[in-house]
């Protein structure tokens, strides 16, 4: 039995990927884990006062997004684990993949204006990640 790790941010653009990875886990009989990585680097764009603990608020937001993903999985009789981390997506993906012994890493393809990555950048990212972790990285829910 393998372990699939799926990085997701939530939002409608991620639903096709979540559905695809849930179907894949069901088909292969693999375990499934969702990972949300909160990245607060966007706060560097302004000098406005940031006195709120944004990291902890985003961690809560991430937990909420993963509850939604877990609900989608439960509808297909899949019990998914959820991991929330703060930092850079790549470093956290590598760390969590190692921690849970992932056999497959899944990322979402670019679907419409809400997508986090451009397709070309995503493929480069996936290839680099596969080299670094030695774990197969697959892009699901993509238009290409």
């Amino acid at each position, binding site marked *: 039995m393998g372990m699939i790790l799926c990085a997701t941010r939530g939002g409608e653009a991620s639903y096709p990927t979540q559905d695809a990875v849930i179907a894949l886990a069901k088909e292969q009989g693999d375990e499934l884990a969702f990972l949300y990585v909160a990245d607060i680097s*966007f706060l560097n764009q302004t*000098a406005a006062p940031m*006195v709120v603990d944004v990291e902890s608020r985003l961690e809560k*937001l*991430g937990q909420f997004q993963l*509850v939604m993903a877990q*609900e989608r999985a439960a509808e297909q009789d899949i019990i998914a684990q959820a991991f929330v981390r703060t930092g850079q997506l790549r470093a956290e993906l590598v760390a969590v993949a190692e921690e849970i012994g992932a056999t497959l890493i899944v990322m979402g393809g670019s679907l419409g204006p809400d997508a986090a990555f451009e397709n070309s950048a995503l493929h480069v990212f996936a290839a680099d990640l596969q080299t670094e972790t030695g774990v197969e990285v697959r892009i699901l829910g993509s238009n290409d």
Partner: protein
Amino acid sequence: MKRSVLYGLAVVGIISLVGGIWWLLAQPTEGGYGPAFFISTSIFVLVFAAISLRWMHETAAALLGAAAVWLVHYIGGTYFPALHIIDFEESMAFVDWNVIWLIMGMMIFMAMFSETGAINWISFRTFRLAKGNAWLLVMSLVILTAVLSAFLNDVTAILLLVPLSIEIAQTVGIHPFAFVIPEVLASNIGGAATIIGDPPSTIVGSHIGLSFVDYLVNMAPIAILCMVPFLIIISLLYRRELAGAKDQFSSALMARLEADAQITDFPLLRKAGLVGLLMMILFFTGDYFGGIPPSVIALSGAAILVAWVRPDMHRMLHEVDWTTLIFFISIFVIVGGLEATGVITWIAGIIGDLAGDSLERATVLMVWIPGVASSIVANIPFTVAALPIADFLTATIPGAENGVLYWALILGADLGGNATILGSAPNIVAVGLLSQAGYRLGFGRFMRDGVPVAIATLLLATVWLLVRY
């Protein structure tokens, strides 16, 4: 042979250029249009461009600009007196320390208050009270955002409210834009209501020595009035989305939402609430106590809370956002350079010519120039630079001594910031928060809502200023 001729010509050209610049710099300058005039203008324009086009962090750009002003003054000025822009001591006189201390005091208070979880608790109660009525829910959250922006500050209100609003929107099955964009627009309107709500309000209010109440009685009525067209526009723009809200919610999501909206520290909430109340009383009665400046009240509140709560001071000071304070000080220095070299007087003269002796025309110009500018460039440096122009026009146009041009500047800078994502810090922060939940809010999509709201509120503000003053 050909190459050596080219080299020779290049050397002669460079020597001529350097010599020409040297000769120009060595000439005595009459009036304010010497090299220092152009260099201080160039520094300001470059800093402005770096901030508005996001070439680098706002604070880094402003700090670099301030350093450039001093380096040109001291090093260039040693060889060419025409490069004297402004020295260190003179430039410190241009820094409005009331603004700096007020922002610092409020930051310390907010850093502690935000740890109580009270704002999220209120949001969740609002959600519960709305009982599935999406329209009522959005209107309540929007009004809550406006009020919080007025009394905390707009960016803090957005950072506290938006993550939970995204969760609420997802729970009721509505696109988060229908909650978040109205909240952001409301924060910019609400921030205009008090002297502590929005940076342009703080900068202008402090510059003309207003107390909290002086500011409030002049600006709160128009900020409240602006909420009317804003709420109408929002209701129209989102009527379809709001009609499609679910009335049955997932129990797992509700449980998660409730867990995210707990009051996390009751003793701290009690203490912060009491100190906040004391600060409010002092803000409202400050005129009675010899016109105590808002900065003194904010700092005193922060000091009392720190002494009472006894937080880890290293952690506390770490939570004060020093980049904001450095940004403000640097911008004051750069604009001080513009004033010292006559740039501001020159621009004020042009605007004065456009306005003539007409207070009405000057008022319209002072609302709409900052209004349009704030939608495309950063409104803090713009406001700091526009202040001396408002001073000049107030001193020269008959009838302007009632301060109408300052109110016009505040309203233009605050309300104009609603037009585009770049217009104000809350917009930028909200875009980042949305992206963290997988929703990319683009420039055009924001403008669809922001432009009509900005135009309607600027129009209303213009009419109100012309009628009232």
